[in-house]
C-alpha cells in the first residue's frame, strides 16, 4: 500500500512538472499544444536510448531528453510562428501521432511496439522497492520545487509580462516593440523542454516505455490538471496535477464496481468521463481553483 501511495505521489510530481511546462505556453502566452505527449515521448525515448545504447549516465540522458524535446518544440513553433494559432494545434497533434507511429515501427531503434525495458533507475538494484520509490519521490519533488521557483520567476519577470501581452493582444505586443515570434519560440521551447524532462523522469522511474503509453488521452490529463488548478497560475498547476492523479486513480477503483459493464466498457466509460470533465471545466470553470493573480508592480509613492 505505501508503495502504491508513493508511486502515485511520483506520478503527481511528473504531472505537475508537465502542467508547469504547459502553463508557460497555454497559461501565459495563450498558445496551444495538442501533442504534449509527443514531447513527453521524445524525452522518454531519448534518455532510454542514450543510457542503454550509448552508455551515458542518467543525468546526461535526461538532459539529452529535455534538450531534444525543447528543440522539437522550437522547431514546430518556428514553422507555425507566423501563422494563425490553429496551425500550431494541427502541427503539434500531428507531431505526437508521427512520433508514436515512428516509435512503433522503427524496430531497429525503438524495439517497436514491444517497447524498451530495463531502463536504469538511480540505485535501483541496491535499494528495496520502497526505498527506491522514496528516493525517486525525493528527486522528482526536488525537481518540481526548482521548476516551480523558476516558473514563478518567469511569471514575474519581463519575459512573463511580454508573454501575457502576447496572449491578450499579439498586435499590441508587436507595436510595443516586442519580437513576438522570438518570444513565442522561446516560450514553446521552455515548455517542451519541461515536458521532455518529465518524460525522461518517467522512463527512469518505470524502467519500461512503449508506444502504447503515449496516447492522445494523456495530453488531456495534463490539460485537465492545469484547468482544474487554474490556468496561468503555477500553484494551480501543481495542485491540479495532484487532483488529477487522485481523480484518475479513484475512477480506476470505482468503475469495476458498476454492474453489467465489461472491462472494455469500463475503460471506455473512464475515458468518456475524462473528456466530459475537460469540456465542463473548460466551459464553466476556466479560472480553476486558484485564479491567476497578476504580479503586483510596486507603484512609486505619489508625489506631494
Amino acid at each position, binding site marked *: 500500500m505505501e508503495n502504491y501511495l508513493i508511486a502515485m505521489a511520483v506520478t503527481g510530481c511528473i504531472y505537475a512538472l508537465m502542467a508547469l511546462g504547459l502553463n508557460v505556453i497555454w497559461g501565459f502566452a495563450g498558445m496551444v499544444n495538442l501533442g504534449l505527449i509527443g514531447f513527453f515521448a521524445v524525452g522518454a525515448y531519448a534518455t532510454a536510448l542514450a543510457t542503454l545504447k550509448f552508455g551515458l549516465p542518467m543525468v546526461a540522458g535526461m538532459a539529452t531528453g529535455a534538450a531534444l524535446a525543447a528543440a522539437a518544440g522550437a522547431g514546430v513553433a518556428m514553422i507555425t510562428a507566423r501563422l494563425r494559432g490553429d496551425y500550431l*494545434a*494541427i*502541427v503539434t497533434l500531428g*507531431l505526437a501521432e508521427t512520433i508514436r507511429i515512428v516509435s512503433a*515501427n522503427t524496430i531497429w531503434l525503438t524495439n517497436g511496439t514491444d517497447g524498451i525495458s530495463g531502463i536504469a533507475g538511480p540505485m535501483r538494484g541496491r535499494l528495496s522497492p520502497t526505498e527506491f520509490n522514496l528516493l525517486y519521490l525525493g528527486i522528482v519533488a526536488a525537481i518540481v520545487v526548482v521548476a516551480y521557483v523558476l516558473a514563478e520567476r518567469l511569471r514575474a519577470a519581463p519575459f512573463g509580462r511580454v508573454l501575457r501581452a502576447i496572449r491578450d493582444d499579439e498586435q499590441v505586443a508587436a507595436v510595443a516593440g516586442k519580437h513576438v515570434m522570438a518570444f513565442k519560440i522561446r516560450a514553446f521551447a521552455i515548455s517542451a523542454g519541461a515536458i521532455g524532462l518529465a518524460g525522461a523522469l518517467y522512463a527512469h522511474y518505470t524502467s519500461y516505455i512503449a508506444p502504447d503509453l503515449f496516447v*492522445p488521452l494523456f495530453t488531456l490529463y495534463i490539460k485537465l490538471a492545469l484547468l482544474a488548478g487554474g490556468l496561468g497560475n503555477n500553484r494551480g498547476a501543481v495542485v491540479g496535477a495532484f487532483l488529477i492523479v487522485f481523480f484518475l486513480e479513484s475512477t480506476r477503483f470505482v468503475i469495476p464496481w458498476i454492474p453489467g459493464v465489461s472491462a472494455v466498457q469500463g*475503460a471506455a466509460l473512464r475515458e468518456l468521463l475524462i473528456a466530459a470533465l475537460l*469540456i465542463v471545466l473548460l466551459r464553466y470553470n476556466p479560472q480553476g481553483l486558484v485564479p491567476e493573480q497578476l504580479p503586483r508592480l510596486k507603484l512609486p509613492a505619489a508625489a506631494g
Partner: protein
Amino acid sequence: MPPFLAEIAQLVVNGVMAGTILAVPAIGLTAIYAVLRFPNFALASHATIGAFAGYVANVKLGLPVLPSVLCAFLAAGLVGVVSDEFVLKPFRAAGFITTAIASIALTIGLENLVRFAFGNELRGYDLPIMRDWRFGDIRVGPQQLQNLAIAVVAMVLLFAFLAFTRTGKAMRAVADNPMLAAIKGINADAVSRLVNFVGMGLAGLGGMLIGLDTTIDPLTGFRAILSIFAAAVVGGLGSIPGAVVGALTVGVGEELCLLFLSPDYRSAVGFMAILLVLTLRPRGILGARAY
C-alpha cells in the same frame, strides 16, 4: 511496360483512388473551417460514427452498400449538428484555441461512446467478394471503383449545392465575409448548423468509404485524421477545391512513398507534407491566406 514503371503506375492509380476518398472528409473539414474558423478535431470521431452507422445498416439490417453509405452520411451529420450545438458552439466566443481543445475532448468522448457500444474488435462490412479487374499491368478492385464513384458523386452534388442553390450561396457568403453576410440578413446560426451537418456528414461518409476498403474499429477516424488534415492544409485550409487537390496530392504522395517506406509510415508522410507546405507556402496550393 517494364516492371518498375508498372509498379509506379499501379501506385499512382491506388493513390488517385485513395486521394479521391480522402477528399470527402477533407472537404468536410475545410468547409467547417471556412465558416466557423477553427480546426475541428471532432471530425475523427464523426468519421468513426459514420463508419459504424454504415456498419449497422449494412451488416445488422442487411442493406446494400449504397443505402448504408447514405445512413453513414445522415448519422454523422446529425451527430455533428447536435454535438456542435451543445458542446462546441458555446466555446466559440472564447476563441478558436479553446474551441479546438474542446473539439479534441469531444472526439475522444464520442470515440469512447462508440467503444462502449461496439467494443474494440475489428469489424468488416458485408461485401460480395469479387475478382480484381486487370487493365494491362494495372489491377483495380470493383469495390474500390464503386467507392471512387460514390466519392465523386458526393463531391459533384456538393459543388452543385454550393454553386447553384440559395442556401449554398449563403454558406459561401458567410465563409467569405461573415460581417457582410450578416448585414445582408443571412442567418449565421442556420448556416453554421448546415455546415456542421454537411461537413460531419461528409466525414461520416469518408469514414465508411475508408472502412469499406479495410475494417473498422473505434480508432478508424483517428487513424485517418492526420491524412485528412494534411489534405486540407496542403490544398489550403478553408478552400474546398483546395481540399480535393490536396487530397489527391497526399493520396498519391503516400502511395509513392511506399517505393522506399513501409506502409506503416503512411500517416507520417501526411505530416511531412504538412510541414513542407507550412514552410514553403503556408496558404496551401489553392488557399487564400493563413495569417
